């Protein structure tokens, strides 16, 4: 490699930097340009990557019932540890992560009614200022509800009982959280603020 080639490579990989009084604007080398194909108007596209990925996911979905069962079991084991040892930072985090994973995956696995119950459990764990105050019975009710919905194979979103159960648990949890955070108006505002990022279930 000649010194000229090395210089050219360095130039190509260097970021363009504009310096201002209190900040710099940097235009990094675009390493992803290699993957952009510009098509002429009217070019026929015979490959739909989204449809192809959806089809691949559909093939994978044969395993989803088993995966949901495994995630429910993981949550139950985490709950059992909290019951046996009393809540502490480590087992609280394990319980939270198990519930949080279910919240994020249940709809993908075909169990959308499980997600709001898992979300309610996440909020209970995350927003209670003193974890020792979290009623074990409320944790149990969430975990048992999640497992019951999974066990009865309540797939889809049309089961009225599961929806009512989720709503009831959510209401009890929110009431508890309002009480626990009654002296923290700033936190309450944050806790009750709507989400910024919409769910992706509808392809948003």
């Amino acid at each position: 490699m000649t010194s000229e080639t090395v210089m050219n490579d360095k130039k190509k990989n260097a970021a363009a930097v504009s310096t201002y009084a209190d900040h710099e604007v940097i235009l990094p080398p675009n390493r992803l340009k290699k993957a952009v194909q510009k098509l002429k108007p009217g070019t026929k596209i015979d490959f739909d990557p989204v449809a192809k990925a959806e089809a691949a996911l559909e093939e994978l979905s044969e395993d989803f019932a088993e995966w949901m069962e495994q995630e429910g079991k993981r949550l139950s084991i985490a709950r059992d540890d909290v019951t046996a040892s009393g809540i502490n930072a480590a087992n609280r985090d394990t319980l939270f992560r198990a519930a949080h994973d279910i919240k994020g995956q249940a709809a993908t696995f075909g169990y959308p009614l499980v997600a709001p119950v898992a979300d309610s459990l996440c909020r209970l764990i995350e927003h209670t200022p003193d974890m020792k105050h979290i009623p074990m019975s409320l944790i149990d009710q969430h975990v048992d509800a999640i497992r019951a919905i999974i066990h009865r194979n309540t797939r889809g979103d049309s089961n009225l009982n599961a929806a009512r159960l989720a709503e009831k648990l959510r209401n009890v949890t929110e009431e508890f959280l309002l009480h626990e955070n009654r002296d923290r108006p700033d936190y309450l505002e944050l806790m009750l603020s709507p989400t910024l990022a919409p769910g992706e279930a509808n392809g948003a």
Partner: protein
Amino acid sequence: MIRIDFNRLRFQIIDDNAHMRRILRTLLHGFGTREVYEAEDGAAGLEGFTHFLPDIVITDWAMPIFDGLELTQMIRQPGANNNPYVPIIMLTGHSEKKRVIAARDAGVTEFLAKPISAKGLYQRILNVVANPRPFIRTRSYFGPDRRRNANPNYAGPERRKGGKADIIKQQSLLEKVQAPS
């Protein structure tokens, strides 16, 4: 009109949940990607990042050892690795305002709330590939420009100081109040 040649992109997935990694890998292969590297926590993710030099990182937020936010902060250290500018897509069940803002302020490029969909993931990838944003370095921030669009209704002070390029034309609050409705 553009098309992404996924075949030419190398991805890294960092998620402690094996099921989610499998779903992500399936979607990426479905898009046409061949090279997908996985890591199951932030520490392994950082190690893999320096080793595999991925073009795009997709990371979960909640993970043991160090989480996706800390991982982002470590990648966005100028000089600490080969590519501090790498696009980072944060995939998470956290979608509350404070979380989204924290992710943005850590230097995350795109935010994707679970549950995941093929369309949602594709759109985020398309965005980072087709519309790369400049990076901003201040005393307290290094990451993609957090101003995606010039807001014509913004009436506050221009916080960035410097040359002409940074001055955003705006109506003052007084002018707005005085303007006939």
